[in-house]
C-alpha cells in the first residue's frame, strides 16, 4: 500500500512531481544559465579544432548554445550513442578535439565498449560531457547514473571530473580542451548554482582544494555534494562545529597527496560525500588511499547513494530519502559528532 498525501482544498490529492528537467538549484540560490554551453563557445573561439557532437540531446546538455554559435562545427549524430562515440574517436584521430554530449547513463552504460575501445584504448582527444550524473533525475533508474563514476574510474587512460557549480564548469572547459586525451566530465545543466566563487576558488586538473578549514570534521566531497557540504558547514556553525571541506573535482587521477595531508590532521573524523553509489566512487577511492598511506582518521563516514535501484520521484524527496540533502547530511554529521 502506497501512502498518499492528504487531499488539498480542491479535494484532489496534491502530489509532488518528478520533473525530469528540474534544476538542482535551491530556492533563492545564485545561478548562471548553461555554463557549459557558454564556456565551450568561448573555448572554441580560441581553438578552431574544437567540434561539438551529441546524440539527440543538444538542448538537454546545453550544447545547443555551441550549435547556434558554430553550426558548421556541430554534428547531430541522432539517437545512436555507440556511433556518437565511435565517430568522436574518428574525428579526434583526424586531429580534432571532440566534445561529445549525452546523458551519463547512455554514455557509461549503453556505449561503454565504444568509449573503452575507440576512445580510451586508442587514447583519443575526446571529451565526454554528460548530463544527469548520479541522482539528478527523478525519472528512475533509466536516467539515474548512480554508478557512472565507478564505471569510468575503472577505465585506463580516462580522466574523470565531477564539477560542483557554474563557476567551476566555466574553468574546467578550457582546461580539458587543452588536456590531450580522453576526459569524462559530469555536467550540471540549465540554471546551475554558483557557490565556489565565494571561496575565490580556481580549478586545476588533478588538484583537490581545501575550501575551508575546521577542527571538528573533514568533509571530502565532489560534484554537487561540495555545494551541499558548503551549506551543511554554514549550518553547523550555529552548533559551534567547524567543518573543513576538501573539494575533489578530479576523481581520476586522484590528488592523493592533498587527501592524505588533510585526513592526517588528527582529531577530526572524515565524512566523504558523493552523488554516486557507495560502490566504486570517491568514497572507496579515498578509503583505499588512506589505508595505503596508513592514515587512520578519528572517524569514517561515507555518505552516498545505496547499492539499489533508486526510486522515481521528485528530486528533493529523493535526496532526502537517500541521505544527500542538506538536511539529511546535517543530521547525520550531528549524530556522528554526538
Amino acid at each position, binding site marked *: 500500500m502506497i501512502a498518499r498525501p492528504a487531499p488539498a482544498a480542491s479535494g484532489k490529492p496534491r502530489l509532488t512531481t518528478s520533473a525530469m528537467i528540474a534544476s538542482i538549484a535551491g530556492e533563492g540560490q545564485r545561478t548562471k544559465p548553461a555554463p557549459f554551453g557558454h564556456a565551450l563557445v568561448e573555448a572554441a573561439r580560441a581553438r578552431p579544432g574544437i567540434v561539438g557532437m551529441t546524440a539527440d540531446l543538444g538542448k538537454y546538455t546545453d550544447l545547443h548554445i555551441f550549435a547556434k554559435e558554430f553550426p558548421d562545427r556541430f554534428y547531430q549524430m541522432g539517437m545512436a550513442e555507440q556511433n556518437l562515440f565511435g565517430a568522436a574517436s574518428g574525428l579526434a*584521430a583526424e586531429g580534432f578535439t571532440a566534445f561529445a554530449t549525452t546523458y551519463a547513463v547512455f554514455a557509461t552504460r549503453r556505449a561503454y565498449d565504444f568509449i573503452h575501445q575507440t576512445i580510451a584504448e586508442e587514447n583519443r582527444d575526446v571529451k565526454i560531457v554528460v548530463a544527469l550524473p548520479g541522482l539528478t533525475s527523478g525519472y528512475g533508474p533509466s536516467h539515474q547514473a548512480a554508478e557512472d563514476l565507478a564505471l569510468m574510474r575503472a577505465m585506463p587512460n580516462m580522466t574523470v571530473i565531477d564539477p560542483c557549480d557554474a563557476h567551476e564548469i566555466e574553468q574546467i572547459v578550457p582546461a580539458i580542451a587543452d588536456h590531450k586525451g580522453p576526459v569524462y566530465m559530469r555536467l550540471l545543466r540549465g540554471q546551475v548554482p554558483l557557490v565556489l566563487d565565494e571561496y575565490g576558488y580556481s580549478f586545476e586538473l588533478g588538484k583537490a582544494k581545501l575550501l575551508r578549514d575546521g577542527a571538528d570534521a573533514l568533509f571530502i566531497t565532489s560534484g554537487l555534494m561540495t555545494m551541499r557540504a558548503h551549506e551543511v558547514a554554514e549550518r553547523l556553525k550555529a552548533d559551534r562545529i567547524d567543518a573543513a571541506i576538501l573539494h575533489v573535482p578530479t576523481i581520476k587521477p586522484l590528488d592523493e597527496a592533498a587527501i592524505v595531508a588533510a585526513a592526517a590532521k588528527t582529531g577530526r573524523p572524515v565524512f566523504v560525500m558523493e552523488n554516486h553509489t557507495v560502490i566504486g566512487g570517491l568514497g572507496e577511492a579515498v578509503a583505499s588511499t588512506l589505508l595505503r598511506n596508513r592514515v587512520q582518521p578519528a572517524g569514517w563516514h561515507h555518505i552516498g547513494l545505496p547499492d539499489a535501484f533508486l526510486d522515481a520521484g521528485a528530486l528533493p524527496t529523493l535526496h532526502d530519502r537517500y541521505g544527500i540533502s542538506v538536511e539529511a547530511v546535517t543530521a547525520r554529521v550531528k549524530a556522528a559528532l554526538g
Partner: protein
Amino acid sequence: MAEAAPLLPNTSLADRAYRIRRNAVLMGEVQGQGYIAQALDIADVLAVAYFHAMRWRAEDPDWEGRDRFLLSNGHYAIALYAALIEAGIVPEGELESYGSDDSRLPMSGMASYTPGMEMSGGSLGLGLSIAVGRALGLKRKGSDSRVYTLFSDGELGEGSVWEAIMAAAQFGLDNMIAVVDVNNMQADGPSTQVTAFEPLVDKLEAFGWWVRRIDGNDLDAVRDAFDAALAAPEGKPRMIVADTLMGKGVPFLEQREKNHFIRVEAHEWRLALDALDAGRPA
C-alpha cells in the same frame, strides 16, 4: 623461412594477392592456428585496395595525404599484416614474430602496435562508426583522402553497424568506401543462418548507399568494383559487398567445414604453401 621471389615494380595484382596469401600462411605457421581461412578469402580485396586503389607511403605510414584503411574485423589482422608486409609498411622480417610476446603484430589488430593499423578492432562493429568520424574530419580539413573500412558479414548483427550506415548517409559521406566480406561463416556457423541480413544490396541501397556486389575472389571484378566505387555519384557513401570463399587458394582449407578458426597440423603448412604455389599466376 623461405625467401619470397624478389619484388618487381610491375608486379601484377594476381601476384600481389598470391604473396599476401603466402605471408598469411607463413604467419599462421608461427602460431600453428588462426584466422587463416579469412586471410585467404580477403587477399584479393586487400591486393586491389593496397596496390590499385589506395594512396600510401611505405616510409611514412602516417602521411597526412594517405587514404585511411580501417580494419573493423580485428581478427583479420593476419591478413592486413600480410598486405602491410607486401606494401613494405611492416618489414618482412617481423613476419616470424606474429602473435608472439612483445611483437608489433598481435593476433587482434590494435592501433598503437602496428604501423599502418589505423584502429583497434577485436570488439566487432566499431569500424564503421570510427570511419564516419574520420570521413567527417577529412571533409572538415578539405582533404581528398578516403576512408576504407573492411568489416565482416557477422558484424552486420551489431546494431552499431546500422547506426553508422545511417549516419554516413545522413552526412553524405562520399569519401567512405566500405567492403563487407560475405564469406558466410561466423563463430557459430554460416552467417546467413545466424542472422537474416539478406537481401543485403537492397537493404544498403534503401539506406542510401551506392552498392556493388561482386565475387570477392575474382580480381578483375574486385578491381572494377573499386574503380566504380571511386567514380560513384557524389553525396553517397559506397559499399562493396564481396562474396568470398573461406580458405581461397588452398583447396583442403576451402573444403574444411568448420574453418572460422583453423588448427592446422605441422605438415599441412607446407602443403598449403605448395597449393598456393601451384595456383600462382604465371
